[in-house]
């Protein structure tokens, strides 16, 4: 039912249902806001998380919005809780995307985290200030080209040992 409505309403949408209660939607990046508001009006008004995947070979970042109805009674005709994974891909170099706070206020911390860990700039976000990290990183640390071992050797390895000075 929902599948048919999505297919008739949106172009360029691919719908897969690999598990029983998990619907996977992929769409080009111009359709995300309209799909989100469509699903919100359908009753899927609970945004679990916004996640991000770095596809370094395709030179793309994938944003994943995970939605469900807060209670299954909210959606008429639904017999068990349906999780909706809404995926889109954006370019990896200087990534920018629009914020979804206007639809889901709960998106704010997730977008801050993705900004911090993957470097995605969410336009219209009220405060993209540091959330979890303490230091500044040249490359955002969750990207695949961030060499953690090299970084550890450079930063933590360069701190001199105090006890060594003591023995001299």
């Amino acid at each position, binding site marked *: 039912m929902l599948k048919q409505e999505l297919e008739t309403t949106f172009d360029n949408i691919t719908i897969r249902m690999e598990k029983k209660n998990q619907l996977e939607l992929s769409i080009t990046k111009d359709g995300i806001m309209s799909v989100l508001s469509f699903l919100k009006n359908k009753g899927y008004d609970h945004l679990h998380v916004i996640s991000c995947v770095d596809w370094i070979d395709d030179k793309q970042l994938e944003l994943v919005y995970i939605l469900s109805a807060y209670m299954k009674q909210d959606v008429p005709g639904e017999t068990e809780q349906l999780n909706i994974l809404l995926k889109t891909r954006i370019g990896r170099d200087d990534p920018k995307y629009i914020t979804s706070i206007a639809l889901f206020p709960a998106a704010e911390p997730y977008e801050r985290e993705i900004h911090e860990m993957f470097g995605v700039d969410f336009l219209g976000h009220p405060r993209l200030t540091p959330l979890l*990290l*303490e230091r500044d990183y040249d490359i955002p*640390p969750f990207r695949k080209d961030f060499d*953690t071992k090299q970084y*550890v050797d450079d930063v933590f390895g360069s*701190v001199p040992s*105090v006890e060594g000075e003591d023995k001299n």
Partner: protein
Amino acid sequence: MDRNQLKKWFQNPVKMAHKYSLHVVYFCTGCGIIEIPPSITARWDAERFGIIPVATPRQASLFIIAGYVSLKTLRSIIRTYEQMPEPKFTVSLGSCPINGGMYYDSYNTIKHLEKYIPVDGMIAGCMPRPEAIFVGVTHLWTLIDKDMADGYKRYRSNYSAYRANQEKILGKLEWPPLFPIHGEE
């Protein structure tokens, strides 16, 4: 009381009192804190050893750092350590504060804790059992007996080096130095 130790009690009562009434502030950052509730409650009953958890660092004399230390927790570890009155002893629990442990290549975890604050004893293991905590504590007793648990003295004498390390990794610290820093005046 052990009668064999009467001589020690008369020779240096203050040191013996420090030994047998270690007031602990636990730093509940990593997975190591899961070993603390069984060790302070009835099963292993740490109060047999005079170890009792206290509410604030102002009352504590032993600082147990349980588990990995990320950059943000390092900041509060330093603040907690500097608030404790002397004499103070530090024991780190688990392999992560020793050399990073399984977080050896993590971008956000401190690898060697002893570069930032002095550590008197390190209990290895991932995670150490509560028995290992008591072995570590009894070992700390012998260190206190021999005046070898002198981390707070080393912190005082090497403060400028410690502070430089802390500022190197954390950026500018927002609290004033605890001791005067050499080379500034």
